[in-house]
């Protein structure tokens, strides 16, 4: 009880703008505790996904600058993979958002996947709630950017932005993963490079085939010369977020919670060894868990 009370005090401090308290509360959430904060459906959450190397972090960096100019308070949760071997992680997203390390209107937190599939763990919800409660008006989740598990971002974000690069020949990969169907906005970044127009056209065509041409926005941006960034922000502001994905969202939330429970099961290691030795088959193992 005492612990809850002391956290109440910390939550008040964080809401008043104390960044260190906010940072500490995020650590507490990451360790698996829940905070006494009401859930809110009002949070503005943008999920940013797309393959590694297309410039997601750098683009978010320049988007932050534009939002701050417009008087918004921007919080970023940047997820990078943990090493499956050592459990350690090298978190380097924020070095691409360096202009954000001054001023009071930006808060960036790097998160390691800690071997959660896709790095999208159920406690992201609590983090979003806390940030929103503390007055952060724009919340951005940057995903690891690989694998089909990226679809899970719909469990946490109510706006989805898919970023790709020109001339990657990877549009078909995005289609395979299905994320192209879910994105509200598809951005071809690095538009200063050749072939970006062609990439945008090929995405638009692909959307036409699936009769989605009308409501998915396809844009070109360049983070190094700020081209298209202010237009992108404008589109995101005006986004009509009522894509019919509430069932999918609920499903991904459930799967996320399920994965979390499985991975944090105390007998998981023992059961893995039993499967390895042949003492259990997979179905039996699932029954045990």
């Amino acid at each position, binding site marked *: 009880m005492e612990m809850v009370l002391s956290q109440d005090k910390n939550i008040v401090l964080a809401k008043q703008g104390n*960044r*260190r308290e906010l*940072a*500490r509360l*995020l*650590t507490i959430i990451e360790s698996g505790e829940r905070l006494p904060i009401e859930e809110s459906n009002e949070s503005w959450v943008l999920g940013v996904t797309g393959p590694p190397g297309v410039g997601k972090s750098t683009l978010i960096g320049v988007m932050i600058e534009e939002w701050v100019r417009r008087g918004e308070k921007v919080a970023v949760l940047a997820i990078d993979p*943990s*090493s499956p*071997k*050592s*459990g*350690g*992680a*090298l*978190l*380097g997203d*924020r*070095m*691409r958002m*360096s202009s954000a*390390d*001054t001023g009071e209107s930006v*808060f*960036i*937190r*790097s998160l*390691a996947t800690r071997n959660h599939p896709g790095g999208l763990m159920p406690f992201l919800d609590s983090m979003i709630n806390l940030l929103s409660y503390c007055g952060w008006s724009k919340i951005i989740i940057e995903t690891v950017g690989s694998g089909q598990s990226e679809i899970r971002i719909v469990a946490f974000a109510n706006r989805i932005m898919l970023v790709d690069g020109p001339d990657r020949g990877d549009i078909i990969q995005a289609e395979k993963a299905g994320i192209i169907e879910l994105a509200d906005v598809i951005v071809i970044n690095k538009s200063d490079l050749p072939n970006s127009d062609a990439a945008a056209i090929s995405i638009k065509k692909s959307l036409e085939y699936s009769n989605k041409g009308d409501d998915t926005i396809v844009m070109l941006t360049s983070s190094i010369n700020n081209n298209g960034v202010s237009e992108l922000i404008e589109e995101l502001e005006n986004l009509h977020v009522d894509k019919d994905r509430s069932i999918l969202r609920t499903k991904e939330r459930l799967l996320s919670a399920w994965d979390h429970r499985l991975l944090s099961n105390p007998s998981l290691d023992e059961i893995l060894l039993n499967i390895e030795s042949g003492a259990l088959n997979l179905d039996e193992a699932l029954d045990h868990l």
Partner: protein
Amino acid sequence: MSMRIVIAKPGLDGHDRGAKVIARALRDAGHEVIYTGLRRKPSEIVRVVMDEDAVAVGLSTLSGAHNVLIPKVCEELISNGMGDVIVFAGGIIPESDRDYLYSLGVRAIFGPGTKTSSIINFLEIISDRKDSQLDVGVGEKIGWRWS
């Protein structure tokens, strides 16, 4: 014990091979490492340590400005109420400058030729000291340092 550690490059110094090797070694030892990238102001580094809720910060400098930049980071950590954060340094820092930096609360200085295992050992020790509530943060009692 896994820790969150910031590896930072303060000031106008374009060399980060060393910082990257350290970041990688700490990752392989199971830590979560946040790398700031090049040419950061002390105030920016302190901001990163705060937002990331890091336990320790490693400052890599090869430019010769260590006697200006490292004290600024130490001072700003303390003035922002983060005296419990552990500061260590590396790069080109002459022996004659080290006592001054230790007197400000820097707990270890690793020069060229240091084995990464030494740094990992240092981190194990500071983790134990923290658990035992012994002085180890930049704003805590000066005395103990890694050697």
